[in-house]
């Protein structure tokens, strides 16, 4: 079942195009990786998909399936240093994922709190619920933000460099966790620099270049010229 269909997007700021002719689809259960060199327009694409800025041209179609689930893409942002001294417990942050769903209601319902507790359990951070976010390790922090993203979305996650700054062991665990979520039915879009992980986990790949973009399955990518050039023949 198709969730997202992006047709011939031109991405950029204030009329200046960063990337052009970006077309791709995301279906339920996909693990789409977005790759490309720095400055090729990956972060602009992320912002556009999240609805933080409009595309210069082209259409992003959200399917009825996605709309029925709230139409929200669960976003795991790159870590920002702004949150460094923020006083907030893990529980407070995870629950804030419900924000858009709660409308004008000033508090969280018991059902929402229950769901938040289940997600924390699922991601192995229940024991940290009352701890302060800023005192956690990088991997734990990412799990907290992942739990929040899962509560915000029905079934579609957008992960922006989820393992940046994590040590190798934690990186491996994070990838396993994402893969497990994907197997359980969560559709994943991941922006990544880590080409080895991309080739291991992705079902589909979107390679953003300045003038154009390549989209296809992971197998097609491995056998394409652009894929071979970018991966340096790794496999």
């Amino acid at each position, binding site marked *: 079942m198709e969730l997202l269909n992006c047709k011939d997007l031109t991405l950029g700021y204030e009329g200046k195009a960063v990337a052009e002719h970006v077309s791709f689809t995301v279906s339920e259960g996909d693990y789409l990786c977005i790759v490309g060199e720095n400055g090729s327009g990956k972060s602009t694409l992320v912002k556009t998909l999240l609805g933080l800025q409009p595309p210069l041209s082209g259409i992003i179609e959200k399917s009825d399936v996605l709309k029925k689930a709230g139409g929200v893409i669960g976003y795991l942002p790159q870590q920002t240093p702004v949150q460094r001294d*923020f006083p907030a417990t893990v529980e407070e*942050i995870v629950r804030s994922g419900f*924000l858009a769903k709660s409308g004008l209601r000033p508090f969280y319902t018991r059902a929402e709190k229950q769901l938040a507790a289940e997600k924390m359990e699922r991601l192995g951070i229940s024991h940290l619920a009352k701890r302060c976010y800023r005192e956690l390790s990088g991997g734990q922090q990412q799990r907290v933000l992942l739990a929040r993203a899962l509560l915000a979305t029905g079934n579609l996650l957008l992960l922006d460099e989820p393992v940046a700054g994590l040590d190798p062991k934690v990186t491996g665990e994070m990838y396993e966790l994402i893969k497990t979520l994907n197997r359980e039915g969560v559709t994943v879009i991941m922006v990544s620099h880590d080409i080895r992980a991309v080739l291991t986990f992705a079902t589909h790949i979107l390679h953003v270049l300045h003038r154009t973009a390549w989209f296809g399955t992971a197998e097609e990518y491995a056998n394409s010229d652009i894929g071979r050039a970018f991966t340096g023949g790794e496999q």
Partner: protein
Amino acid sequence: MNSFLAVMSFSDFAAFFVYDFVWYALIVGVLIALCSSLLGVTLVLKRFSFIGDGLSHVAFGAMAVAAVAGLTNETWIVLPITVVAAVLLLRTGGNRAKLNGDASLALISVSALALGYLVYNFSGSSNLTGDVCATLFGSTKILSLTPLDVGMCIGLSVLVIGLYLLFYNKIFALTFDETFARATGVKTQAYDLLIAVVIALVIVLAMNLVGSLLITALVIFPVLCAMRVFKSFKRVVFCAAVVSVVCALAGILLSIWLETPVGCTVVAVDLCAFLGFYAVGAVRQKIVSR
């Protein structure tokens, strides 16, 4: 013995409480302290501490205009001007180039201060220095409130506190991660606007208590105190509110007892509280890291 501390005997001090103006001052002081500390949490955490300062200077300028125009109740001119300035400042400070916002804030801040004083010179007041000093440091205003002032303050405070409780979860999410909130479909610009308006309201209120120069203290001290010791958002908000109210009460009572200007006394008490919390936080840190 010490003439500084022996200003008033206790019975003289207690006698003050038969006067309405003392109670007015206490009520207004507590409400303002409560409101400003609530907002302070958001302002400090979003790195907007200085917006309070800039806005209070704008309010000073507006106050000068009101004085020259000979208005009896300045609030009606000060409030709209401050609200507009707040909206403009949060826009530039929040979204666009950070550096630019920083500089424009300083620009607006000093311009309003200078022009305000300039305008005051045309007011033809016989007590120019006194007027300006009162507006800057709020020296006597708080002890000469009318029932109307008090009523207005209660009304605005109820509004601010009500909005804060109603939108508490949203305020947390917006303060913690605005991008995420926007990505999940929250109308962040509407909330930013709301926050800007409420900040302006509180600053106009707070000018009565501490004057326009010292407002930043009311906004930042309580939350900085709370952040030294507490690590959850809820507790920080709660602690900041309590610290702010206690300091305001203590400051007002002290100022009556010692016959010192109210605003400065409140801020001095806030500073002492901060030093206290800082020490507690440092000691805790040491115990934990051992």
